[in-house]
């Protein structure tokens, strides 16, 4: 009996472990960056200026605006590419295709999601880079567009699977009622299913955004490492995630530079936390109905 009590305690402990880990992540990342966050870092300079010279001898500047804009630009372009394809594919898989084709497409989506991000980055360098050079006649093809194509391909699978769940959650009686009135499939989708599933589809998009914001290796390798505000999709940029990955190795432990990278980590953590929380609340909104 005692054994069972101990075991149930262990199970409860593992149950709350996810909460502990989320707090732990915030705590330990915060802990490494907190010194500089409150003593030294000019938060206004950090958030609103574009000069990022962390290793300069005479003129050290930690303006992360270019990095923030870098992340936003790559993510935005990726979503412009991915949302229509992701939701369109979700609609096709859920409403327009037969059982066999659906199973096949789901496997494809799963495999697409299984490609490691470093391999995506490599594909960005070896396959998409020359393609962009040829099509747009640019000297180098590592830029916002390249990163966005990769992020789009990486976030489409999550959009399709969450979006399909959302569409599946719409009761069949809705479809039957619409079809019985003589509406076509397309009319049913457009007038009945989309309005009914809009929260779930929004959540699917948000999770795609979260995925794209947090992606590291692919954008590190494919966006071209230039810290500036991009003016066109063919400009190279550097994202928040890529900056941490590129500079953490060189920053001396405990130095200002090192701590600033952890502060960027806190920013990323909060950003994705808000996105995921919103997605969750939006989905739970359906559950209540």
């Amino acid at each position: 009996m005692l054994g069972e009590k101990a075991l149930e305690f262990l199970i409860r402990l593992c149950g709350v472990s996810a909460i502990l880990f989320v707090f732990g992540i915030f705590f330990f990342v915060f802990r490494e960056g907190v010194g500089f966050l409150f003593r030294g870092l000019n938060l206004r300079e950090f958030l609103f200026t574009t000069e990022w010279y962390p290793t300069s001898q005479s003129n050290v500047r930690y303006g992360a605006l270019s990095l923030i804009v870098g992340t936003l630009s790559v993510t935005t372009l990726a979503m412009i590419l991915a949302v229509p394809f992701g939701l369109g594919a979700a609609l096709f898989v859920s409403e327009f295709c037969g059982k066999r084709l659906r199973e096949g497409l789901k496997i494809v989506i799963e495999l697409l999601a299984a490609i490691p991000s470093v391999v995506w980055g490599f594909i960005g360098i070896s396959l998409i880079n020359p393609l962009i050079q040829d099509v747009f006649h640019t000297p180098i093809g590592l830029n916002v567009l390249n990163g966005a194509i990769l992020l789009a391909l990486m976030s489409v699978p999550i959009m399709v699977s969450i979006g399909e769940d959302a569409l599946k959650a719409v009761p069949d009686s809705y479809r039957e009622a619409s079809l019985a009135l003589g509406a076509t499939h397309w009319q049913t989708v457009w007038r009945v299913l989309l309005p009914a599933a809009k929260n779930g589809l929004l959540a699917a998009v948000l999770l795609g955004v979260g995925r794209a914001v947090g992606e590291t290796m692919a954008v590190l390798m494919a966006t071209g490492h230039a810290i500036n505000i991009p003016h066109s999709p063919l400009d190279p940029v550097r994202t928040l995630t890529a900056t941490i990955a590129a500079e953490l190795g060189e920053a001396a432990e405990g130095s200002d530079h090192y701590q600033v990278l952890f502060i960027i980590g806190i920013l990323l953590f909060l950003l994705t936390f808000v996105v995921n929380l919103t997605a969750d609340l939006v989905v739970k909104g359906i559950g209540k109905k």
Partner: protein
Amino acid sequence: MSALFAETALVRKKKRNELIARSIFGIMASSMVIPLLLIIGYLVYRAGGYLSWEFLTTNPTHGMRQGGIWSALLGTIYLVGISLMVSAPIGVLAAVYLNEYAKENWFARIINLAVVNLAGVPSIVHALFGLGAFVLFARMGRSIIAASLTLAIMTLPVIIASTKEALAAVPMSFREACWNVGATRWQTIRRIVLPNSMTGILTGVILQVSRAAGETAPIMFTGAVFFKRLSEGQFFAYNLKDQCMALSMHLYTVTTQVPNAPEELPYAIALVLVGTSFLANTAAIIVRTVLRSRKKW
């Protein structure tokens, strides 16, 4: 008579729109198939004859320009194996808690939210966490153990999600029958619920392996190194306190930091990485299909 059943303009328009919608969505769906085939085909084509048994079992030499990937391959096996040993029990028990013990209240809601958020934390933030918590705070140093623990926490949601799904698929009547003959809650879980959801748990484990094997960012600063020489053909060549090479990191290194590497080399490494995850995912799909066909309820 025939005019009565002839298509009106409205019907024709409906049919046309239906066809257009179907083909547009079909094209969008197939747009996922094409990149997948293209990528695999391209990798296989370029990696060509570079892949061989020798490539897998010899160390990289001459500044990674010659030789194989043995030390990276073994490093990945270590990292994945150890992270699995940590995340599988915690993940399965967490799912047991969520599905069998937790009531439907705000607390369970918060745990579920935490799981979703844990899955959404960027991989590079996991790296910062691993560095702050395991490498520095717990004084593990940059080592296999620190990197594995970081990977374990990162991949925990994968196991929790698929185990939870598997547990939820076990009909309530199974549990009720067991309770009615006097079994305790744990006995029910141990004898009835877990055995009936074994395949689902296995799927989660396989997906965890696939995910952990491909991750780069979380291990970059917690235990992976550019180069490490090992005695070939010896499985226990790494010590847990050592740093190790890893396939994913090796691909990054060779692609971005090694000039004049043989052209096929990064393709071969990428193919091994993709091949590993595809094998794992295919295994997961097969397990799931078998489960579905064997299900008696």
